[in-house]
């Protein structure tokens, strides 16, 4: 399915040590993609809406955590599509709606989407969202419409603290690693998240805590074994099974011949 050759891999780097939870990125995303907000209920969290939606492609997750010494910590994490190099959603999409863009983005073409929700099930990051009204699935586009025209993604453009940056894969990995080194020197358990997962994501984090600390962030994400079984084993096995049986039946007919009723001598 992956027909587009990646020409220049671009990466969005999210340095969580610089996120203030202002949600400028969230608003900019809605703004650029002309998505209205929906009415939500206050559940005692700043996180709003409560989760990614078909028309909320990125959001800041607000997480309150009690540290080991009893003090409280507030964690912000910008969530959204990671634009995997080996994307489970692309692997399972039956209609070709999901594909790879030339800058490394994972594209979702709503005109080809048939609303089967396979991508929703397959995604190891739980990102795509199905809209029951339009019966298609949506997710972050990495602002392909902007980045292929020399602009940076809307969320990056809006970020006031320098938490978000956008550049070539090499630049962003170098920048991320440099920042991780800085933070580690300060005694922070920082790491670069995404460089080595699913053959490299095109959205990476500088984390300031261990992976497992972040709510809803998969630890060491990979293409699920079930996705491989489903596309690489079950599918060819189906064709093989039918083909083998038809072939064997014909051979049986030619070599052994059909079974005739007794006392009739054939017909």
């Amino acid at each position: 399915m992956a027909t587009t050759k990646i020409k220049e891999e671009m990466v969005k780097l999210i340095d969580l040590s610089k996120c203030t939870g202002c949600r400028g990125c969230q608003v900019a995303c809605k703004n650029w993609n002309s998505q209205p907000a929906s009415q939500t209920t206050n559940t005692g969290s700043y996180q709003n809406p409560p989760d990614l939606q078909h028309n909320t492609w990125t959001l800041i997750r607000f997480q309150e955590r009690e540290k080991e010494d009893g003090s409280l910590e507030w964690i912000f994490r910008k969530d959204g599509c990671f634009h995997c190099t080996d994307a489970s959603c692309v692997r399972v999409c039956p209609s070709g709606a999901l594909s790879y863009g030339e800058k490394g983005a994972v594209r979702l073409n709503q005109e080809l989407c048939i609303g089967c929700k396979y991508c929703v099930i397959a995604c190891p990051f739980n990102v795509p969202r199905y809209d029951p009204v339009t019966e298609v699935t949506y997710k972050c586009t990495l602002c392909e419409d902007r980045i292929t025209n020399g602009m940076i993604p809307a969320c990056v453009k809006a970020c006031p603290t320098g938490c978000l940056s956008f550049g070539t894969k090499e630049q962003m990995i170098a920048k991320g690693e440099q920042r991780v080194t800085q933070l580690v020197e300060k005694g922070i358990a920082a790491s670069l998240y995404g460089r080595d997962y699913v053959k490299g994501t095109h959205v990476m984090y500088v984390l300031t805590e261990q992976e497992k600390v972040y709510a809803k962030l998969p630890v060491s994400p990979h293409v699920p074994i079930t996705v491989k079984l489903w596309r690489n084993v079950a599918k060819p096995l189906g064709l093989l099974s039918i083909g083998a049986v038809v072939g064997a039946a014909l051979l049986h007919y030619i070599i052994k011949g059909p079974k005739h009723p007794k006392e009739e001598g054939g017909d």
Partner: protein
Amino acid sequence: MAGQRVVVASTPYERVIHWVLAGTCLFLVFTGLLIAVNAFAPLAEMLGGYRAVKEYHEWFGLLFTIVLVFAVRHWYKEAGYIDKTDIEWMKAAGGYLWKAKIPEPYKYNAGQKLFFITVALYGTAMVVTGLLLWFGKGLIWAPLMRWMVVFHALGVAVMGGFSMVHIYLGTIGTTGSLPVMTDGKVTEAWAKTHMPGYYREKIVKGQRKIKK
């Protein structure tokens, strides 16, 4: 075969259920394959595109579900079990592959029973996993949901493959079998060979059908 005595081997009810089940099952295997295999994209286009194929698949899935209930209710007593003689039959591969003495079945041989049991059990699995795929997003844990999809995708291999065996043996593979599912009338020789128990009951007791 004019003038030969005929034996009625199936009821109209059985034939209707059989063909509706067979038709929906094959259609589901076909549309399922269209969705699974990208190389069939032009075929999917001819049927109105992938979305249309998906919708046919869903609605025929519902029809399959309903007919499956009737089929299982009707045949489980006669075909829904495996006994000692069935094991013997299976060890001899039904006498289809090499010369072997096979035990006499009543009406359905072990192969037919296995096919019925597979359709009943895997068919139910297909219905359950299919409904989960259609409506179940968020109801169950994602990794488990992915296993559901694997089982659903394996349905082509299991149901499709076994169906091909069934079609071969029901048509050219066993001479004289097709009429069982067309007008229901088979030759006496066929009945004596393939459903000896049923045949004796019909001839000896003069019954037209099995009374349960």
